[in-house]
Structures are given as structure tokens and as C-alpha cells.
């Protein structure tokens, strides 16, 4: 019997930027109390990448996040996607004010507290509320794992304990380049925004449906799978986490000035044939002046 894969996913609570849900303070900073929180879209992709291993390799999945007590709801969302066997909330007042380095230290401690030794850790590409994408690499570095970023597809050889991954690399002036790499486990993978799990045999899809149902059932009773850990329980070094462990200082946040509209919108009545005809003519004209490189 092969040792089953052990997988961790780190996810992040993010403000819901969809219309009507986001709210700002007069000084331009986010009004967190008024803004609804959701599982970030990149985190959701990381969870779906873990689900892929669940379906393909029957992996054991743990999900962790750092956040306030009500962040348990985003763990529920992540469990719904990944059918996680366990979820962890790292929550403590002293975590507040952490920059990416402080967060990485804490996540490292958290991952090490999860059940079993990790073979694979997934994170999202980056968060959409200001963080610039270092948390993943920094956590990998702290864990001493190989880091693979921008992963769009992966397969694990459970026997040889290696991972083969496709990375999408974007270089200016070039088309997207897909790089294929192989690395021995343990590996830390930051999932590319264009990642999509594909199950292309009937048996994989049957397994997928089965785990989806399990995920639904689990998510409904998500508290049963949840462990909440504070700083002390995590055993993290207080000097390396929270504000104390964060060398970054946010100097000032500025609103992006509204650009003067260079285009003018015109409302067209879609049910009027003449008006639509006019639109088509305008589009034709616009297209004819376009130069295709």
C-alpha cells in the first residue's frame, strides 16, 4: 500500500469586491467592518487544485487560514470546494498587522501543526486586496519546500513521490510559454489564475461526483472538522509574527485619481433594428481601421 498523499492548502479571506459589497473609509482605506468577506478567488482555485489530488490520488487534505474568528466561514467555502478532511483557523489578536513575512512565518507554523507531514502545499496566485504575491514563496522558503509558481496543471507520481507540473510563464514580448518541470516532494505550489481541474475519464468523474457530495455533506457540518489555534497553541515565535515580525511599514495609501473619460458611452436600444444596424456599421468601421500585428 502506497503512503497516501498529504496535502495542505492555505487560503485567504478577502473583501468581496463585487458590486454593492465593498465599502471604503473616507481616507481611501478599506472599511473592513462594512465590507463582506469571502474566500478569495485565487484561494478557491488552490482549493480546487487540492480537490484534484483528492479525486486522482485519494489525498488527505487540510486547509488553513489566518484570520478573525468569523473567517471560519471561508474555511467552510474552501471545504465545500476541496472536500477537506480537516480545517484550521489560526486566530489571535497578536497576528494583526502582519505583513507578508510575518504571515509566512505564521503559516509555516500552522502547516507544521496540521496532521501529518505535508507532501504538497497549495496557495493561490496572490490575494486581490493588496498583497503582492510573496506569501506563497516566503512560506515555501520558510518550510524549506521547492517552490513552483504559476502552475496550470500537475500530476503526482505517488510511488516515486515526485510531482510534474506545467507552469505558465509570461514574458513581455513573448507569447505564453508553458514550462514543464518535475520535482521531488515536498513541493509548494502557487496555482495560476488560469488553472482548471480536468477529469477526463468516466471513473475520475464518478470519483469526482462522489467526493463533491462528501464535500457538501462535510461543509454542512464544517465545525466538526474545524480546529482553531491561537499563537500559543501554534508555538510560533512571537518575535517573528504579527506586527513585531513585520518589517514593512505602510507609508500612505492613495486613491487612484479618476482618469478623464476618453470615451463616451452611448445607450443603444437593442430592440430597434435601425439602431443595431448603426452599431454594426460603426463596428465594421472600427475593425477596418485596426491593424492586426
Amino acid at each position: 500500500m502506497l503512503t497516501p498523499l498529504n496535502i495542505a492548502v492555505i487560503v485567504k479571506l478577502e473583501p468581496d469586491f463585487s458590486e454593492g459589497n465593498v465599502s471604503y473609509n473616507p481616507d481611501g482605506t478599506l472599511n473592513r467592518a462594512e465590507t463582506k468577506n469571502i474566500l478569495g478567488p485565487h484561494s478557491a482555485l488552490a482549493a480546487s487544485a487540492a480537490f484534484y489530488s483528492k479525486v486522482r490520488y485519494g489525498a488527505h487534505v487540510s486547509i488553513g487560514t489566518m484570520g478573525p474568528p468569523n473567517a471560519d466561514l471561508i474555511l467552510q467555502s474552501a471545504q465545500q470546494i476541496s472536500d477537506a478532511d480537516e480545517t484550521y483557523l489560526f486566530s489571535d489578536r497578536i497576528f494583526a498587522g502582519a505583513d507578508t513575512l510575518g504571515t509566512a512565518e505564521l503559516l509555516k507554523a500552522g502547516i507544521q501543526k496540521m496532521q501529518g507531514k505535508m507532501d504538497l502545499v497549495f496557495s493561490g496566485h496572490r490575494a486581490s486586496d493588496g498583497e503582492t504575491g510573496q506569501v506563497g514563496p516566503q512560506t515555501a522558503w520558510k518550510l524549506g519546500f521547492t517552490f513552483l509558481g504559476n502552475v496550470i496543471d500537475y500530476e503526482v507520481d505517488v510511488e516515486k513521490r515526485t510531482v510534474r507540473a506545467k507552469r505558465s510563464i509570461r514574458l513581455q514580448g513573448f507569447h505564453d510559454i508553458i514550462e514543464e518541470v518535475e520535482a521531488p516532494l515536498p513541493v509548494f505550489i502557487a496555482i495560476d489564475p488560469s488553472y482548471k481541474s480536468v477529469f477526463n475519464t468516466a471513473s475520475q468523474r464518478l470519483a469526482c461526483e462522489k467526493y463533491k457530495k462528501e464535500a457538501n455533506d462535510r461543509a454542512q457540518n464544517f465545525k466538526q472538522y474545524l480546529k482553531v489555534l491561537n499563537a500559543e497553541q501554534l508555538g510560533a515565535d512571537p518575535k517573528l509574527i504579527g506586527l513585531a515580525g513585520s518589517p514593512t511599514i505602510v507609508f500612505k495609501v492613495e486613491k487612484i485619481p479618476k482618469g478623464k473619460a476618453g470615451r463616451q458611452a452611448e445607450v443603444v436600444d437593442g430592440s430597434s433594428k435601425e439602431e443595431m444596424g448603426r452599431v454594426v456599421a460603426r463596428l465594421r468601421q472600427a475593425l477596418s481601421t485596426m491593424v492586426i500585428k
Partner: protein
Amino acid sequence: MEKYDVVIVGGGSSGLAALKQLSNRGKQAILLESGGKVGSKSVSGGILYSKKPKKANVHNVEDVYENFLTDAPVERKITKYILHSTSKDKVFSMDLTSAHEYEANFGYSVLMNKLNKWFADQANESAQKYGGGIIPGVHVRDIKWDGDKTIIYTDELEEIQASAVIASDGVNSEIANITGARKKFSPSELYQGVKVVVKLPEDIINERFGVSSQDGAAHLFAGDVTLNHIGGGFVYTNKNTLSVGGVYHLDSLLENPVEPYEMINALLKNPMISEFVKDQVPVKKEIDKNLSKEEQIRIRFATTKLIKSWQETRDAVLSSSGRDRLIKSGKYASEDEIRTQLSSLQTQMADKYGVTLETDYVEVEYSAKLIPDGKRGRMKNPFIKNVLFTGDAAGRGIFIGPKIEGLNVGIDDAVRAANTIADALEKNNLSHDNLGKSYSNSLEESHYTKDMKEIDKDYLKIFLDTAKDIPRDILSSKYGMVIKLMSNDTLRNFSVGFANILGYEKLLPLVESEETYVKVPMELADRLGEKITSSYTMSIPSIATRIGKLNFSDDEMSHIKVIKPASDFMKKMVTLCPTRCYSIENDKVMIQHEGCIECGTCYEETDWKHTRGEKGITYQYG
């Protein structure tokens, strides 16, 4: 290549029953459904019947799903069944409850999206025990035979091998087409069904239709509501919605094309139906454009929010389970308290935002689908090699007078197909010959096949008894004469016997005509009917609004290709497509596939496929 004992194509009520029955027999089967959610592409009226025919046997829904009677999310048990003849604002009604109860255990009103989901959960759970299950989002595009191998090709998965296949892929069966099992149905073998679901609180339904919360009513309509087409309309009560729809002979529509959109509007505008669907609807006041943008947005959001909570509270107040739920949850102490809250919300809406309540109706879903007429189009040999066809795919729909049955027939077929294959697996005799013959024989024994072949004189008698009191002189003399003759038991038995010798082919053009479906009912209504006036002017949504409410997942590739852009048939599609997918330019018909609801109306002269996995329409009610 992966191999399964049985592959079922299509997750409507028929395919799902096949999966459940195979699992009941301990056999492995997988079901492939192109929709992202199983059963979400099915449309029905619908009343789901369970039958107890005296002479032949049938397999009913409760035989397949052992917990159907206790757990299934059906709407209401139909206990009143009334046929209305209409002419303008006059309606003449006949109680046909005895026809509805004829040889029936029950007839439940159902919304297929909800019910199919329940069927799917039951079937999937059983199937998993034998290494099978449901795979949604997979579109089967081909089946090929290679030696003794049967290979199934899909748009999404690697090839799959099967020992036998059940094709339950609906009226526009691609499997039938690809394998050459039958020709495409011709318009004379089809009906077009169009439907809207209307929201109405439970208590209002109970009161308006004179039924208790569990019971329901079915109202059927003939006469000018069909805008002179062969067909009829219906209003079925669900728990807290009404299904309002019509089915029209496609031949008749092609002869005199009227938009499905207009057909349904004609029904809704009938004063009796208008009165059935009416409700209190909040109407927002225009927001003062002089206010600041922010303030306008704030008011818009706040009004919407308030209306939403008013609606939720009202729905709960006006339903027994809703009231119980709110009180049990501890939110309110008593019914009175909820009512007080409701009127306070109403006052707030009016005082703060100028929202008024007006009499109108609330439509939540527009849908359409073809239905096969089994009397004409039923497959005589519903199989090819080791592929067995069931339900609409085999053309097995029953239309007799007001009777529309397809759900129960498809379930019965599915059990027979599943049993045929299970027996064959047990006897290890999967020869194509054996499968096809056994299945055909089994279907021949079905009560439903009999219904598709000949007139049942006892069923006919019920109609004649109901029509007994109609003065003979009132019907155009031809029909008065027939009714008179048929009312005599001996003469009736003799003439039905004679008619059945003639066969449906010769009989149908006489029985199913504009005369019987439109003229006679109009005459009845004109001369005996009661005048009904509608108390309000309804605001019927535009076609764009109706389409806008539907859920689509667009595919960049069109699943339908026009192959005869200048044909007469295609030109009529510009009118007959329920969602106006066709337009005409320079005498050539073009398609815009994005709004296609896969009704199948344009099937005959197009290269027509169901959408690829997870694409296309997903109904909420069905």
C-alpha cells in the same frame, strides 16, 4: 478504455429511472447527461401519474423509488380536473375528475427540475454501490460498434465501452439519429409545448382553487385560447406556483405560424386564467433624478432590500410550512406577530419609498419543448443492436383528448429496458438479437403501448357521460349525432371496435382537427358559457425579459447548424422559435444560438445537437 455494463444516455425522468432500476437489480450502470445539473434541461407540464390498468401491467414511479410516496418533492395531489371550453370572455366548464382518476393510483403535479434532482440523488446513491453513478456535464456524440465492442464517444471524456446502452436522450434523440435507429420525427408526429411558471402564495392557491395545501387542481382549456391551433392549454397548481402552458400540434403551427411567445400570452389573457394568476405586486416609484448619484443608488438598494423582505415575509405568512418555520426558528412568537411585521414592512415601503401594491401577476420562468405523439410517431422497433430507446427518445408520448402523459410512460419504458438488460446479464446472453426482441416484447405488453394504438372505450364513456347533458342541437350537427350514437352502450362498443379496426392512422385526421379542438369548444362556450371578466390589466413581460430570466452557459460554438437557409420550414422558424434565435436577411435564415432553449422545434431541417457538457439552458423549475 474503461468498460461499464450499461451506459445510459440522458438524465431526464426516464434515464434516471433506468439507472435506479438497474441498481435495484444489482447491476452496474453509468448515466451521462449533457446538462451541468441532472434533469435541469427537462420541461414538463406536468402531472406525474401512477396507473393501475385492469388488463395490462405497468411499472410505476413508486415501484422504482421505494421511498417516493413518503419523501419525493412532488407539488400537489391533483383531485380536481376540469375542462374549459373558451370563446373570448366566455367559458363553459365540465368536470372531468373521473377521467383523471380513471385507472389511476394518483396524479401529482410536479416541477421536473426539483423532482429530477431527487430522482438523481436516489439513483446515484444506489448506482454507486455497484461501481456506477451519474456523470453530469457530458455530451454523447457518437456510438460505434467494432467487432463485439460498443464504444461511446463524448465531447468531454475518453471513450467508454459498454455491454448495452439505454438511450433516454429525449425527443430530439441524437442517438436515434446517429445510429440510424429511426428517422427524425416529422412535424405531424410532434407537439410544441410552451409554459410559464407563475409565482403565487400557497394560501391564495388553496383558496382560489378550492383545495387544501396537499391537494391541487388541474384546469384544461380548449377553444380560441389556442388561436385556432390543434391543441390545448393547462393551468396546474403547484405548492406555491402555477404551471400555465399549452401544447400545440406542430403541423398546425407550421400551417399558420404564431410565435410561442404569443401563444402563451393568449392563454394568460384569457379572463379565467388572468384571474387564476393574479396577485399583489409591489411597484417602485421612479427615483428623483435630481438627487445625487450616491443617494439614487442608496434608495435603489434600500427599496429592493425592503421589497425582498416584504416578499419573503409574505410568502411565509401565506404558507402553512412557512409560518411554522418562522415560529419554530424563534424569530416570531405567533402568526399574529408575523402579520404585524408584514404590515409594518408594507407601511415602510409605502411611506419611505413610495412603493405601491398593484394587482398583477409574477412570472418566474418561460420554457418550451417538443413532445412526441406516440399515436403517430412511436418507434415500432425501439432499439438498434444493443441500444434500447426509452421515453421521449422512443417517441412514446400519449395525447388523447386532454390527456398528456410522457413521464409515467418513460419510467415504465425505463424499467422494461433495465429489466431486459439485467436479465440478459444474468443469463449471459447479451446478443443484440436477444436484447432487442425481449425489450420489444416487453413494451408490447405495456398498457401504454395499447393506449398509443387504440381507443379505450371505457375512457371514452367517461367523456360521453360528462357531455350527456349538453343539448344536442347545440353542437354542429355532425358531432351532436356522433355523441348521440356513442351514448348508447351497444352502439359505442360497436363503433369503437370498428374505429379500432380502422386504426388511429385513419381515425386521427377526423378526431384531431380544428373542428374538435377549436370550433366545437367555441360553440359550447358561446352558447352555454358563463361570461368572465378580468379585474385588472396584466403586464406581460417582453420576450427579452423572459429570456433574460433564464440561465444560460454560452458556448462559443453553435450546437445547431442551419443547412437549408432558404427553405420554407426554416423561414417559419423565425416565428416558431420560442426565443427568437432565427432571423432572416437577404432571404436567408440565420441562427443566433445563444438564446436557444433546446426545445427542438427547428430540429427537422437543421444539423441539430444538444449543447456540449454544462453548456446551454439550465431551468430552475422545468
